């Protein structure tokens, strides 16, 4: 159930994307023609600052049934052990145990995809360097730099809070030779986007993002010849791979500045709801909530990523697996929310339109995931065309007056449309 709340806010605190409902004076006494609007650019903020002292903005709060844990304490082993060491921290820790948000925050994009994509690219490149040095550093015996990791995650969170499509678009950059680092980064990005979708507050989103970046840190202790084996594992090799959550827990728990949530995610992201996961075979109530969140993202990115020996599968294939394993491998409610978050046509999908032109999805529409915003790149004669934005939510029509729809998603590379090259070369939108 949703209810709309009005918040009084000083004009100095206004941000792009806020919905202004009322001013501190009658609208007719100001220059604003429309009585109530969403702030689209900085000029509007300047104008509000010039004419008002404070305004009333819309805040949307969704009342949600509280998450009831059957177990008294659903936090992970490390968090509970720490309470035994520091009993005075227990009351505070129990009252703030991670779970689904009680008051779901409905985020809106503050700026457009086109404006965010360049900053997102920079955050992506920086974070990829961090992810690579993190894994390589541990192999070389260096101590994991939590501050560096936090800084990278903060950049990612800031970008996704401004616009939730730009960084997700970059997760389509799948380089088979850099799988381990790219996977950690992509899980971080998609976990942040998923946490935003779930309506978590900013501090929780940052914790989930950090846990996503570090979830596979234990793989740095797996021999390279096993980790990068091009093909099927023997039983012995698979057993070695299954040790990485334990290594991850040990690595992170040894760092005084590591967060409990990151330790829990690294240790429990391969646990399953049916109790058949590893390393501990936990029951659903015992699996830390954040680990349930990250496990969905982990599977999605693993399936859609390219390997040295094979091409990644489509987003649909990964969502099919998540859908069919809801309630067994994955928490059912979270699995359905994850599918809603990713959508049928996530950013980076290549689609054929009803007029047989081809385009690339750059942004989903929160109000209708089946009508995303795309960039038209190729015409019906398979000739490259000037890149133009087509917002299907606005029901554009073809030359015969028919409303354009998506005919089908096509695999990356079809007709020479290669998503990686579009991301690397940048979009030339007119």
């Amino acid at each position, binding site marked *: 159930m949703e209810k709309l709340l009005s918040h009084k806010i000083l004009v100095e605190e206004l941000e792009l994307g806020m919905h202004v409902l009322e001013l501190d004076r009658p609208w007719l006494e100001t220059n604003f023609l429309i009585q109530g609007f969403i702030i689209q650019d900085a000029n509007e903020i300047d104008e509000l600052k010039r004419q008002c002292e404070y305004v009333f903005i819309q805040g949307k709060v969704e009342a949600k049934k509280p998450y009831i844990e059957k177990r008294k304490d659903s936090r992970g082993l490390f968090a509970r052990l720490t309470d035994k060491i520091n009993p005075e921290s227990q009351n505070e820790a129990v009252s703030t145990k991670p779970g689904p948000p009680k008051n779901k925050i409905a985020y809106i994009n503050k700026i457009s995809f086109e404006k965010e994509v360049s900053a997102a690219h920079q955050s992506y490149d920086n974070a990829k360097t961090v992810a690579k040095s993190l894994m390589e550093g541990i192999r070389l015996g260096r101590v994991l730099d939590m501050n560096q990791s936090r800084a990278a995650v903060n950049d990612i969170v800031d970008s996704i809070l401004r616009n939730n499509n730009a960084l997700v678009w970059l997760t389509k950059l799948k380089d088979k030779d850099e799988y381990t680092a790219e996977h950690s980064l992509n899980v971080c990005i998609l976990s942040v986007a998923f946490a935003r979708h779930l309506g978590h507050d900013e501090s929780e989103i940052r914790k989930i993002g950090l846990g996503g970046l570090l979830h596979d840190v234990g793989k740095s202790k797996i021999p390279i010849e096993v980790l990068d084996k091009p093909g099927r594992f023997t039983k012995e090799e698979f057993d070695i791979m299954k040790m990485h959550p334990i290594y991850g827990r040990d690595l992170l728990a040894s760092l005084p500045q590591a967060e409990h949530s990151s330790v829990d995610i690294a240790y429990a992201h391969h646990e399953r709801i049916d109790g058949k996961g590893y390393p501990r075979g936990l029951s659903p109530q015992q699996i830390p909530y954040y680990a349930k969140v990250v496990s969905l993202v982990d599977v999605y990115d693993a*399936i859609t990523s390219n390997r040295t020996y094979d091409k990644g599968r489509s987003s649909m294939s990964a969502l099919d697996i998540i859908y069919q394993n809801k309630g067994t491998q994955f928490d059912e409610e979270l699995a359905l929310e994850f599918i809603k978050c990713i959508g049928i046509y996530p950013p980076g999908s290549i689609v054929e339109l009803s007029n047989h032109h081809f385009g690339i999805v750059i942004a989903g529409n929160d109000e209708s995931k089946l009508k995303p915003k795309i960039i038209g790149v190729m015409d019906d004669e398979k000739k490259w065309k000037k890149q133009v934005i087509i917002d299907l939510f606005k029901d554009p029509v073809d030359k015969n007056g028919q409303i354009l729809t998506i005919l089908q998603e096509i695999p990356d590379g079809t007709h020479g449309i290669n998503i990686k090259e579009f991301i690397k070369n940048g979009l030339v939108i007119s």
Partner: protein
Amino acid sequence: MKQNFSEKRKLPRFLCHAVFKECSLGILNAHYAVTPINYHHQGIGLYTASPLPDVKAAMLIVNYQAEEESLKRLEFAVQIVHAIELDTGCQYGVSFDSKTKMNQALHTELLRIETILANTAGNDDRYGLFT
């Protein structure tokens, strides 16, 4: 730009949830429970938590039930043509492609299952979550 791409999958794959109940693969005298993922009349995508033995030939046992029909069971020889085994779970592509060996009744039934799945599938909204 790459110009040499060719799409391997020519048939649409339908989500298995509407019809399939339980599935297993018989391999070397042992049975392994598998989760059916998506299907067309020439093959099925399967998923397991742990890797299966590294073989090509297997027996697929599927229990399925279309609306208002009784539960049915099929058991027939298949080929495991693709395997991706990850720490997150294992995907297998299983082919029924044996036109010369497969009897007509089985082929007809596999086509019928595809039709049932096609009829129950949402046009755009594959998971029924967006409309």
